[in-house]
């Protein structure tokens, strides 16, 4: 990405970095449980921590982990450092589904279900159309993803236009910003199950993602069925993205910035990059959420904060120089 490359620094112990991240995540999680805007009283300390703070901490970690893992995986199987979890239209589909549910007067878990379905539907559509494109498979999928994504984005805009401006429109707008406000005990499990289900193959096949970065032809000559492997990785990444976005709304930038930061810290080898991205993503979103709920007198939707922090940080990363990747 960057042209100047003074340093040839290479992390000689990426495994230790991953371990360090894991320890850091555990300590920050513990600290987050104790931090909050309102002081805790002894009599209700456990109620607050278990029912309010813990679900939110778990959800922040899951969302950060999922988005970063999906971003890193997409970057690998599309041989493209700019790939993010929305590359195949997953987030735009989720947004459309959520907006539709809100327009139909639904709330809570129905919105989540609509959003999850919309997300999967959008990616399925991209996959189906993308396979029919002539020329390079990867490019065809990416272009189809951009187009289908923008169709869903236009659909969402239309739904906002016809939505009731007194209550529905603000609800849609707020949902689109992405937030962990009001995440409760009962929200965690339905999101956690598909996320964990999708993260598993991403971990199992992390060596094969390395091979996939070399391009389809070379992957094939190294004994890896590129089409099949991409299908597995895209399916898993879509599952975790859809589950995350439908539960939290649009939290941008995490899936692009965190994998890149992880590449700087750990290197490009997915054997350590994948677990590293997962841990770093969880840590990142947990910290941002701590800021979102504690730092200011009025809570800021986390999607706004990730963009405010993520985008400048990304610019810093790509202009700083260092090892070219």
């Amino acid at each position: 990405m960057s042209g100047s490359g003074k340093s040839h620094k290479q992390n000689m112990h990426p495994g230790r970095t991953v371990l360090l991240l894991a320890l850091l995540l555990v300590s920050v999680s513990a600290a987050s449980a104790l931090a909050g805007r309102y002081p805790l009283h002894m009599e209700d300390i456990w109620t607050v921590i278990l029912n309010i703070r813990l679900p939110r901490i778990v959800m922040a970690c899951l969302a950060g982990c999922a988005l970063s893992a999906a971003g890193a995986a997409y970057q690998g199987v599309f041989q493209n450092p700019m790939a993010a979890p929305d590359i195949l239209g997953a987030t735009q589909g989720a947004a459309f589904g959520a907006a539709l549910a809100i327009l139909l007067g639904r709330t809570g878990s129905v919105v989540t279900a609509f959003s999850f379905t919309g997300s999967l539907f959008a990616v399925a559509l991209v996959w189906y159309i993308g396979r029919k494109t002539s020329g390079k498979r990867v490019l065809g999928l990416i272009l189809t993803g951009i187009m289908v994504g923008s169709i869903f984005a236009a659909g969402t805009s239309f739904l906002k236009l016809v939505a009731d401006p007194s209550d529905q429109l603000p609800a849609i707008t707020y949902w689109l910003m992405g937030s962990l406000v009001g995440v409760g005990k009962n929200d965690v499990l339905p999101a956690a199950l598909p996320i964990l289900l999708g993260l598993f193959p991403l971990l199992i096949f992390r060596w094969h993602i390395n091979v996939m970065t070399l391009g389809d032809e070379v992957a094939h000559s190294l004994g890896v069925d590129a089409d099949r492997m991409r299908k597995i990785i895209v399916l898993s990444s879509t599952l975790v993205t859809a589950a995350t976005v439908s539960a939290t709304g649009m939290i941008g930038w995490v899936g692009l910035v965190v994998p890149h930061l992880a590449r700087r810290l750990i290197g490009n080898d997915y054997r350590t990059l994948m677990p590293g991205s997962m841990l770093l993503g969880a840590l990142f979103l947990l910290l941002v959420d701590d800021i979102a709920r504690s730092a200011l007198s009025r809570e800021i939707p986390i999607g706004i904060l990730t963009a405010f922090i993520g985008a400048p940080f990304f610019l810093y990363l790509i202009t700083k120089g260092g090892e070219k990747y």
Partner: protein
Amino acid sequence: MNTEVRNLSFSYGEQPILQDVSFCLNGREVVSVLSPNGGGKTTLFRCMLGIHRQYTGIITYDERDSRNLSIRNLARYAAYVPQSHYPAFNYNVLDMVLMGTTPLLRSTIQPGEEEYEIAEQALARLGISTLARRGFIRLSGGEQRLVLIARALAQQAPMIILDEPTADLDIGNQHLVMTQLRRLRDEGMTILFSTHDPSQAYRWSDRVLALSEQSIYAEGPPARVICSPVLNHLYHIDATVVPLDDRDIHIQIHS
């Protein structure tokens, strides 16, 4: 290992790319494929590697029909060194070579000690062990090519197919790469490579396949194939091939 390509034909839609191509590779030889641009050598390689499977005809490795081999098993018969490619992400050399062991992985999901040993041996065989910790992207063109050959060695396949292995290299690196390929032949491997340079084919190969207009126009030892009539037919030129000695030729093109 014996490799046989029999009556191979392939077309993109209506357009034929290869028609009725047949040849054998017998192991322990360097064979070059000489063809004009668009002559079908890349398609030939893709068919042999199983990337294209919708061909007609038969390709066998040790009498086994390659169509019946899984992608992974095919990778254990033929390794591939692509034309220079700029990877999307930088890997260090050892990891790059380690990727060659992927078809050897059985139940494990990532390389273990055994595979590391194979990768290190591959680097040592080409005399580039000192590059192991360097980033692939930062290497010179010649070094990169040697690393890709090491990766092919780590695959432990008896044959390496190379697509224009020296196309973008200076003559020093060309010599280095070709010398190493010849050494691998002496160790028993089959080397199949494509080139646009008749002099290179003349100097380095035991046998030449001249591919023209979708089929094999001439086949045999370099001294017999690389002659004026064949080159004139292949490249649509008016040239005279003047042998200088048993290794070098001069190609005089009359305008």
